[in-house]
């Protein structure tokens, strides 16, 4: 269990496979992420990148191989899974805020029920986080009263309230209007610079260029190519990478 705690490797994936019925979505993904690293995963839709990131907190189950997060192997033991989920924050494409709760209740819910933090403490932390994402004045509104960009920033604050060691972003800006993308990216960039370990599925190449340590190109359930942004953008090795980059960068 303590295999990784001495080293800096916070996520270790070894030959991870997954099938949806007979469809082979992940075909042997092996990957390690260092503590404090910012990894951007990109690739065409249907390439398995979302499925892969959702395996990291077991929203999807992998059927073969090994995933070790923060020294704990993900398996059928639900306690391990819940422990991992407390260490791993996740932000979704569709925000998935709880519509029946106010912004502040959305943020304080998990610390109060999962970590048993006192009301005063969780409230104070939530207000700090709302200031960090720039919308403390929205604390008592309901999600439906906020813009998409504001909702996504609340979702980030909600994930951060559990004080995770890793943050997963699953296409966080894909459902947003263009003028709201920047406000979310600014928060993510600030988070990356603060030393948080981040794995993000995104096509925001500006974000990747600014803060990613490593970019990984997924296609057809495999890692086709990976490297630092400078290398991926300026000197991609694989033809599929070149083609995909040319498609998303030239329009």
């Amino acid at each position, binding site marked *: 269990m303590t295999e990784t705690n001495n080293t800096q490797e916070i996520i270790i994936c070894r030959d991870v496979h997954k099938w949806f019925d007979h469809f082979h979505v992940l075909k042997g993904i092996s990957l390690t992420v260092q503590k404090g690293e910012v990894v951007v995963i990109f690739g065409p839709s249907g390439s398995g990148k979302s499925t892969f990131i959702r395996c990291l*907190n077991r*929203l999807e189950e992998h059927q073969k191989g090994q995933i070790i997060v923060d020294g704990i192997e993900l398996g059928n033991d*639900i306690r391990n899974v*819940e422990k991992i*989920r*407390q260490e*791993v*924050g*996740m932000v*979704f494409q*569709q925000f*998935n*805020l*709880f*519509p*029946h*709760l*106010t912004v502040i209740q959305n943020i304080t*819910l*998990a610390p109060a*029920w*999962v970590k048993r933090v006192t009301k005063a403490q969780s409230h104070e932390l939530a207000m700090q986080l709302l200031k960090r994402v720039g919308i403390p004045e929205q604390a008592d509104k*309901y*999600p*439906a*009263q906020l813009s998409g960009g504001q909702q996504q920033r609340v*979702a980030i604050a*909600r*994930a951060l309230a*559990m004080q995770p060691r890793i943050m997963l972003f699953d296409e966080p800006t894909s459902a947003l209007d263009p003028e709201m993308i920047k406000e979310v990216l600014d928060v993510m960039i600030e988070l990356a610079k603060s030393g948080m370990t981040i794995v993000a599925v995104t096509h925001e190449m500006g974000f990747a260029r600014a803060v990613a340590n490593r970019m990984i190109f997924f296609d057809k359930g495999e890692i086709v190519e990976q490297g630092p942004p400078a290398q991926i953008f300026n000197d991609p090795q694989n033809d599929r990478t070149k083609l995909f980059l040319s498609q998303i960068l030239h329009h």
Partner: protein
Amino acid sequence: MAAIDTVDMRPPQLAAGPLAWLRKNLFSTWYNILLTFLAVWLLYALLKPAIQWGTTEARWGVIEANLTLFMVGLYPRDQIGRVWLTIFILAALIGLSWGVWKNAARGFALIALSAGAAFAIIALLFRWNVWDEWLLAEAILLITSLVGRYLPRSSLILTFAWFLYFPLIFLLIGGTKYIATLPPVGMGLWGGLLLTLLLTIVGNFGALPLGILLALGRRSKLPIIRYFSIGYIEVIRGVPLVTILYTAAILLPLFLPIDVRPDLVIRAMIGFILFEAAYQAENVRGGLQAIDRGQYEAAHALGLNGAQTTLLIILPQALRAVIPALFNSFISLFKDTSLVAIIGLFDILRISRSILAQTDWLGTHREVFLFAFLIYWLFNLAFTYGSRRMEEALGVGKR
């Protein structure tokens, strides 16, 4: 670039008021005028005999003479103070709920308030000696609503008090041999509107938790629980209520040991709970299915376990979504309580029929049944209004 003139425009002034409405909807063209007069004449021709009968022939004395019978059946007349006490406590609970939960309970509070006022006025007009009780109930409701404002909004004590109210009703109305001031009153004497309302409320509120469990069970991953829930729901829904009441009344005692033989009223209540649970389960299941998968994922990703996810995230949203359906079933059951007549209980409708047998009031069918009709209808109107207000107040954040 062409300059665009952006003068702020006001919405066009539309004629308003009852006169404008009349002109627009009833007297806009010559044939509309003709149709309006025709309709008025038709209404008059149809209603004239009814009004004539109601104001001259009808013997409304039958209602006045039997009012207590309508309300509480054969409940001992010297013990009726206990029924009043349950009403006063109800007024206090409604008042507190209004103060604490504000808008969500406002509709029901307003109804209770206006109903109480109406009863007090009617009692005063007819010189019945119950007007002071109704005024007292009004005062209790208003005072407790003011008290409620100073209680914390999330107060669980109030929810708890509501739950406690139901056993308390049984204690107050049914009595116990251990308290000298509350001598036992056999359930065979409970009747009239009192019995109808008790069956409705116990049936519905007993069925809701069971229905929620069945709805969750039907979606469970464990096959035993899932198949049990499906089996239960489908069997109960496939059988008429009358059958279930007969089963509860006649067959249930055969399965129970001799010394455990619940009263007929209790058996009827159990029957209603078991019946209603199947329908409430399907209502709740509809709400559960409307919840986006992302809600489960977000809750799990935060580390909430299955029970926390269900109780804190899924059920609050699912139940809010099905408030109209839940109250629809509520109203249905309210009307279905009239079926208890066939197992020998005296609900308000059966009481009405028994009144017709009184020699003093032979031939007063129309008066008596109109009165019963009015009671059912007014209560349902009140439930509908209250639930709509509740739905609006709890709908915040949705949309």
